[in-house]
């Protein structure tokens, strides 16, 4: 009978492979598989169609948030241009479907690849620079992309946006939310695992080194320029895939969907969930989407009861901004940080205070 490790009361690892393992304890593995079962087996059948739509949105935003976490959480690049790259993926998918009748398994990866190229384009002027200048460069690229989305009418349909054609769903017929759900979450699982593996490989360690101290990383032989550019490419690939899926989810896209506010909301997701942590991105996406749904719900209530002309749903932006500020002030590591603090407190009980305060 296999020896189960339920909590870390010492180090029982006997190889490097175990050290790098995905889960440190067996309950972790159990939870993971239970979670997979719930996600794939239970939710699609238990929820109503509205719930499915919300969960689909969570899935799409999670993929984008993972990409942004690779950029911001692991590499330390504050990117305000992520929603533009997301938009590039969305427009690519729609254009390929409308013009070339591409099926979805061509359009979605193509969206990711084109976005990766766009991300490299964003990165080229940006990665040479330090901290906040880089931020301005991504902001400029975001605004330039917004301009292209709105004004290249022949390709993108201008400010009114374009819709995806029927042929995108051919062969699978997934205009239903359920099949889209399976596609999104299969992709999410694969890409989250991919990102996690990438981040504990040499590449991920290089990115963390660059984030922590760029000069020291360069002195150790990590070419910061190349790795930052690669991180832009990978992060944008994720955003592009998410964008392509988004275009299937919301059948019409328009430039107003991909503005600076959306970029900031993506940043909110990773700050709330925890920067530098893949499950954190997913958590953050969950919180933000739930916030959005709650504010839409409040909107309906206000409309029914008081008939106010105010649109409460825009308070969702306000709430997201407030959450960003609150989390940075009180819990800069996000929900995952708070959770690992709690776990550490339990583990080192009754000496929790010592370990929480870091041996001060």
């Amino acid at each position, binding site marked *: 009978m296999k020896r189960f490790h339920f909590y870390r009361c010492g180090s029982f690892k006997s190889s490097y492979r175990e050290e790098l393992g995905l889960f440190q304890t067996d309950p972790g593995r159990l939870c993971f598989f239970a979670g997979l079962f719930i996600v794939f087996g239970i939710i699609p059948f238990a929820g109503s169609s509205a719930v499915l739509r919300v969960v689909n949105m969570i899935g799409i935003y999670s993929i984008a948030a993972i990409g942004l976490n690779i950029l911001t959480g692991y590499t330390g690049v504050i990117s305000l241009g992520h929603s533009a790259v997301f938009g590039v993926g969305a427009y690519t998918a729609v254009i390929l479907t409308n013009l070339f009748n591409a099926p979805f398994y061509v359009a979605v990866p193509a969206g990711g690849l084109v976005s990766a190229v766009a991300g490299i384009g964003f990165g080229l002027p940006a990665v040479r620079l330090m901290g906040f200048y880089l931020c301005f460069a991504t902001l400029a690229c975001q605004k330039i992309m917004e301009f292209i989305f709105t*004004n290249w009418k022949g390709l993108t349909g201008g400010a009114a946006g374009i819709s995806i054609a029927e042929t995108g769903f051919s062969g699978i017929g997934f205009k239903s939310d359920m099949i889209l759900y399976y596609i999104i979450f299969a992709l999410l699982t694969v890409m989250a695992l991919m990102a996690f593996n990438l981040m504990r490989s040499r590449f991920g360690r290089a990115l963390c080194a660059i984030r922590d101290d760029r000069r020291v990383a360069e002195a150790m032989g990590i070419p910061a320029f190349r790795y930052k550019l690669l991180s832009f490419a990978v992060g944008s690939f994720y955003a592009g895939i998410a964008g392509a899926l988004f275009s299937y989810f919301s059948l019409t896209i328009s430039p107003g969907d991909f503005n600076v506010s959306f970029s900031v909301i993506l940043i909110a997701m990773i700050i709330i969930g925890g920067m530098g942590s893949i499950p954190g991105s997913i958590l953050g996406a969950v919180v933000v989407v739930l916030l959005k749904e709650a504010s839409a719900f409040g909107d309906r209530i206000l409309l029914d009861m008081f008939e106010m002309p105010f649109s409460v749903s825009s308070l969702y932006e306000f709430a997201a*901004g407030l959450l960003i500020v609150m989390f940075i002030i009180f819990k800069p590591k996000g929900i995952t940080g708070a959770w690992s603090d709690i776990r550490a407190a339990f583990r080192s009980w009754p000496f929790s205070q010592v370990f929480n305060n870091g041996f001060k």
Partner: protein
Amino acid sequence: MTDLYMLLLKGISLGCLYALSAMGFVLLFKTGRIINLAHGQVMAMGAFIFLLLSALPGNTVIVAFLLTVLIGFFVLFVIERLFVRPLAPVNMKQGIFVSIGILLMLKGLMSFIPLPPAEQVSAGTSISSSGIIILVTGIFFVLIFLILSRRSSLGLYIRAVSDNRKAAISLGMPIKRLFTFSWAVAGTAALISGILMAAGSGLNASDLGTMESKIFPAVILGGLGSMRGAVLGGLLIGVLEVCAGGRLSGPLGDLFPYLILVMILIARPNGLFSDKIDLAGIKE
């Protein structure tokens, strides 16, 4: 030919307003090494409140102006107390995130309150009398700001703090008060520039949505840490934007400042007046 003159005048007028906001941004950077990404949004907020107030019946321009400054000042005060104070000793990256958060909060507040459909002022290429007033007022405020930063003792303190913060502290300068003061001044400058922008050219709602990042090209062009750079950068960006757009906010005019920003960041990221910046204290 008169068309070009008109465009130039409009550009200088817009440029003065950008310069005002940019000087506020630079002031904040000098005093606290803070990049306040929400600064443009404060400008948009000033414009928004002004438009809201002047749409209500029975408000003259002056009253709306003063009320806007009052309300805006109150919002800035709340933000400073609640969010900026607790973060004073923290590093730059978290400061940027907080300012991003404040940006989103202000944006959310602005889209929460519906703006009454404003009569859109026809944006021709001629200067109306109100345009001249805006130009003069803009130049007036810019000059005041410049003179204050060069000649007054507060300006001296601020330059000292930006040169070497620790030395300034050890010499007994009231850093916290200075920072609060510079936050107030910078915020008011942004508010005033937003109000003037709204008063002069009849913005509509979509302009408000894109206004929040317009000042960053001006700041970077001039160079962070230099007031004169901010003025020059603002004027240049204003003129170039109007000339590119043909009128105040054509689509190409919206794009041009960002193209310039990218080019500046590639070629000379420190900006025009770059020797004034002390970059040694900034961690990458």
